[in-house]
């Protein structure tokens, strides 16, 4: 892994370097890039010099020390910002993300990040614009580094489960998802205790938004806030399996095509499965129809849950309808591209890929009490149909309770 960082010259880093001009200390140069790293300075007097790359200091120590320093700063920012603007929260969460990412870095990259942190974060006041630029720089460096790490993974270095899920990739992305969860959508998760800590369970949620951000946030809620963090395997619309790049990416994140057979298999293995019975009808909903559940197609999944003896937990996601307010559906374009719908939002497709940046609405995710299946395995169609209606009306009720009026 040592060669991982050499030659990774990033001249762009040198341009927005927010630190004051300082003396160069080439002895500390470890990355060999053109980045012209600024020497650490004691001018602020808040951090003693850490000999970088020096003998006697292991990578683990450096990791620990840097993490501790960042955490200290995070607490300080959080305390200071109490009751004030959200900027403090964002800064604190960004620091938390930086701290989580430290785990993933190779020793040379770690040394560089440690120096960047010391120079740009610990030395400047966090109300200073320089502090924000420093945050951005550290994060960007970490993202580049981690992306490089993923690209360089080749054979034998990672394992996948039988469905193609890549646990390492999930571990890498998890801090970023948690950052979005806390700062971008400021998700409030209610009733997480209704998600069983072990054994099979079927979450049934409303679907919204063009991209499956709602499944990502449900999964993050259970990973970050559940007393017993578990992986949620979401079922995605089958047609996504025909979309290049999307198909393998979804599989890596543990998502599987929505088919009752797949749900049955996962539940039989005792996994936590989330299904969106509105399917494409939910995702392709227009803005004025938001929070009105589209027709449900849940019978197959509910039957799978009954067969596996899995509790059924209705889930309502409020807020995801606003991230891509879909004003129209260009059906001819959709037909041309072979898509089930082609969304027109205030930003998409007018801004191109930028239009896919979701709007930062405030989210609430409510996990309702599990529905006890009074019918066991082998319930008849009518009973499953009634159960489906019950689940649907529960989700609709949760949406009505929590959705913004208007």
């Amino acid at each position, binding site marked *: 892994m040592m060669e991982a960082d050499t030659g990774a010259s990033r001249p762009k880093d040198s341009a927005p370097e927010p630190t004051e001009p300082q003396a160069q200390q080439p002895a500390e140069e470890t990355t060999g890039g053109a980045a012209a790293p600024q020497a650490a300075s004691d001018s602020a007097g808040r951090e003693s010099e850490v000999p970088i790359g020096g003998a006697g200091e292991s990578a683990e120590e450096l990791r620990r020390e840097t993490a501790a320093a960042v955490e200290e700063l995070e607490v300080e920012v959080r305390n200071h910002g109490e009751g004030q603007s959200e900027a403090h929260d964002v800064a604190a969460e960004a620091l938390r993300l930086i701290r989580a990412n430290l785990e993933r870095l190779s020793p040379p990259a770690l040394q560089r990040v440690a120096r960047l942190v010391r120079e740009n974060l610990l030395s400047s006041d966090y109300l200073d614009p320089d502090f924000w630029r420093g945050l951005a720089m550290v994060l960007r460096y970490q993202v580049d580094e981690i992306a490089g790490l993923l690209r360089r993974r*080749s*054979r*034998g270095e990672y394992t*996948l*489960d*039988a*469905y*193609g899920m890549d646990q390492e990739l999930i571990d890498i992305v998890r801090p970023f998802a948690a950052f979005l969860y806390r700062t971008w959508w400021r998700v409030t998760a209610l009733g997480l205790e209704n998600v069983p800590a072990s054994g099979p369970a079927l979450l049934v949620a409303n679907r919204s938004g063009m991209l499956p951000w709602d499944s990502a946030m449900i999964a993050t809620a259970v990973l970050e806030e559940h007393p017993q963090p578990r992986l949620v395997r979401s079922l995605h619309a*089958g*047609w996504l*399996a*025909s*979309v*290049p*790049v999307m*198909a*393998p990416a979804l*599989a890596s994140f543990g998502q*599987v*095509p929505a*088919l009752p*057979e*797949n749900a049955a*298999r996962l539940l039989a293995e005792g996994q936590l499965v989330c299904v969106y019975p509105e399917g494409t009808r939910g995702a392709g909903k227009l803005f004025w129809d938001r929070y009105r559940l589209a027709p449900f197609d849940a019978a197959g999944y509910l039957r799978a849950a009954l067969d596996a003896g899995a509790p059924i937990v209705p889930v309502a996601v409020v807020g995801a309808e606003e991230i891509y307010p879909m004003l129209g559906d260009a059906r001819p374009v959709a037909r041309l591209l072979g898509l089930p719908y082609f969304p027109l939002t205030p930003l998409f497709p007018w801004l191109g890929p930028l239009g896919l940046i979701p709007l930062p609405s405030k989210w609430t995710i409510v996990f309702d009490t599990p529905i006890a299946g009074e019918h066991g395995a082998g319930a008849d169609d009518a009973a499953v149909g009634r159960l489906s209606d019950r689940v649907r009306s529960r989700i609709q009720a949760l949406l009505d309770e929590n959705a913004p009026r208007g």
Partner: protein
Amino acid sequence: MRTVLITGIGGYVASLVAGALASQPNLAVIGVAPELPPQPLDGVRLQQCDMSANSLLQLLEASAVDVVVHLDGVEPRALRDDRRGYLFRTVELLGACAQAGVRRVVLRSSTLVYGARPDAPLFIDERAPVVPPERAGAVLDYAEVERVAAEFAARHPALSVAPIRCAGIVGEGSPLERYLRRRPAPVMLGFDPRIQVLHAQDAALAFALAALADGLDRPVNVAASPPLPLSRAILLAGGRPLPLPPGLIAAAELRRDGQLHGVSALLSTVTAPVDRLLDDLPFNSAFLRYGCVADTRRAAELLGWEPQHSAEETLGALAAAGA
């Protein structure tokens, strides 16, 4: 005393099956082929046979054969010129078996007979329909033979037919092995379907167990676990995946079938150099886009079969053999 007859005894998998069965007590094993292997096989009676219905019938009746394991198939000689011959030979064999009072015929088939479909379950079980591919090849042969054999068995209740649907067998020098080891091995850009492989010894074990499993009259999937993304399987086998745009692959297939005319044919000559890369694919290009992964629970249930070699191990051995 029971008697099992194995056809295509010259093949690698067939010799492994014969070896596995030869050690069974109270079991006589006969191996037949048009050309016999040069070495004798321990405990196996080798007999030369031209595989015509008449000579087969004589042989089956003379030895009172109970079970036939039909491995005189399309692979690994998939590129041999007698592709039609496999179906024809199987029909002759089935006829002879029915007449000679054979109780069961175990056939070799492929898990790919379920086809490459975006809406297939992640693990396909044996109840799923067989979807013959549009393009000729080993998979089409297997699908046709299965259909004919099932129809035949329906008309002859005394004879049961058990197709053993094998994932890509590694160890017999098949086109799949050559593909997985290629540098570069073409894959489809933006897709990475899961594929399954099967160690030749595990395949042989499944055929042997199927020969011994009384009353087995239905298809059984066998595959090593776990299924792997195609690109990873290639890397593990010592190859290097080369992602090609789907359009390029489609054009190459159409051109090979002579279905491009006029302007499109002219245009596609630009990409013709890529065609060479797509020669000798072990399956049609649909399998580069969508996976076809079989559920092997029935094999465990009915045959007591469990793979002894993992997919990674099987492919790793392939890489080691190539290096």
